[in-house]
């Protein structure tokens, strides 16, 4: 058993932290967190990618900072401090986007600010970062950000393809071949799309099949 703890900074446990949230413990399709933004920013692939990157950065670094401070944070105000950390990081992401990815900044507008209220971020802080070491928490944050981003991008690819006949803004399905379906661009389309994704995942992944 001792060998497991000697795995170093990137052993089996760390790999699990990164990969579990992508399938077995996906924050969107399994824990049903962060659905609000998953519904709203998935009509095109590019903003979805940027949003995924933003959430990954915020969860990873807020996990890291919270975990580093976890022993000093007074228990009675821990949520306030967590929220402060998240708010600062979101503001940083917003400023970075405005300076270096302006078109994405314009497209995402209010949703960047809404990362603060994304349940995944606070959820990971409370559930993981407050009780684990900084490095593991950082990886957990990246993993959950990627799990969220993965679903976001899958949905965006499907919606952009069927709703606009394009991919990353390039028209790939010519108008003569495929008549675009405007319904897929509307937020309601992502609601049933997310349902279908959950359905597929639950039938394919044995660990998620409800045995009760």
């Amino acid at each position, binding site marked *: 058993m001792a060998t497991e703890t000697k795995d170093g900074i990137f052993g089996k446990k760390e790999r699990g932290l990164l990969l579990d949230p992508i399938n077995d413990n996906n924050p969107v399709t399994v824990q049903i967190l962060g659905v609000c933004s998953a519904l709203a920013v998935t*009509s095109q692939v590019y903003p979805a990618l940027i949003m995924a990157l933003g959430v990954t950065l915020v969860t990873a670094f807020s996990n890291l900072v919270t975990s580093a401070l976890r022993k000093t944070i007074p228990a009675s105000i821990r949520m306030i401090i967590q929220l402060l950390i998240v708010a600062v990081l979101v503001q940083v992401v917003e*400023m970075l986007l*405005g300076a*270096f990815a302006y078109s994405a900044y314009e497209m995402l507008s209010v949703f960047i600010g809404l990362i603060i209220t994304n349940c995944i971020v606070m959820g990971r802080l409370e559930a993981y970062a407050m009780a684990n070491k900084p490095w593991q928490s950082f990886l957990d944050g990246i993993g959950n950000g990627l799990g969220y981003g993965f679903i976001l991008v899958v949905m965006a690819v499907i919606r952009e393809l069927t709703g606009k006949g394009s991919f990353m803004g390039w028209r790939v399905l010519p108008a003569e071949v495929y008549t675009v379906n405007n319904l897929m661009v509307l937020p309601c389309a992502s609601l049933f799309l997310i349902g279908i994704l959950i359905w597929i995942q639950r039938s394919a992944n044995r660990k998620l099949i409800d045995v009760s």
Partner: protein
Amino acid sequence: MQNNIKIYLYVLVMTSISAAVLSFLYNVLDPLQAKNKEDAKKRSILNSLPDVKADIDFDKTVKITLLDATGKVIFTQKEDTKTEDIDKQMAELNKRGQGVKYAKLIDVDLALEEKFPLDKRIYPVYSYVSAGKTTQIVSIRGSGLWDKIWGFISMDYKDGKWTISGVNFEHKAETPGLGAEIKDSKDFKDQFKGKQIYDDAGKYVSVAVVKVPKNKNWEVKSISGSTVTSVGVSEMMIRGISYYLPYLDAVSGKALTEKK
């Protein structure tokens, strides 16, 4: 009590650090963002031209004219306009208050002008010169379904008539796939090309957005499923361009003979 002091101190230290980090980053990144915003606006103006190329230099090809609320020219940018003159004019405009602080001609924006009463507003005209021909681009702004919509209309004086050569619309929060099509749909925007703003009798009519266009010179087809946004565009086209009529009339006499 002891415990409370610790909590207060903790919060104080944390918020101070956060404030320091944010204000430092703001100072570093804000100029970059302001430049991006300006570039996006320039691109949006140039996109109203029919034959827009990506490498057009805005500052070299476009001159900005400012009109007052009666359509009278209050400032014209020329090749040899000095920076001091612009500064002076901007200071004059900034005197109107409302927190509006212009530094450059490109800063003048209808979004900010909306803070002033109608008779104090300033309207910018962008004159694009290419191959000796001057195209006038006017800025218009109105309301869509969810929030503001705005746009730039480029017009040429052809055969004694002001003819639209291209339009570019922007929106803040219209529904993707429906109202947002005013920006995203090339077909919608292309309809405006060749439309006129005066009818045959010389009366100002602008271009209306209607369900079934009957009059090919002055009407375009609306976007089905987004009536409110279409009506907003229609209203914006009619009211928005009307502010520039005195200027267009004054220019049109000149445009016929102007050669470079």
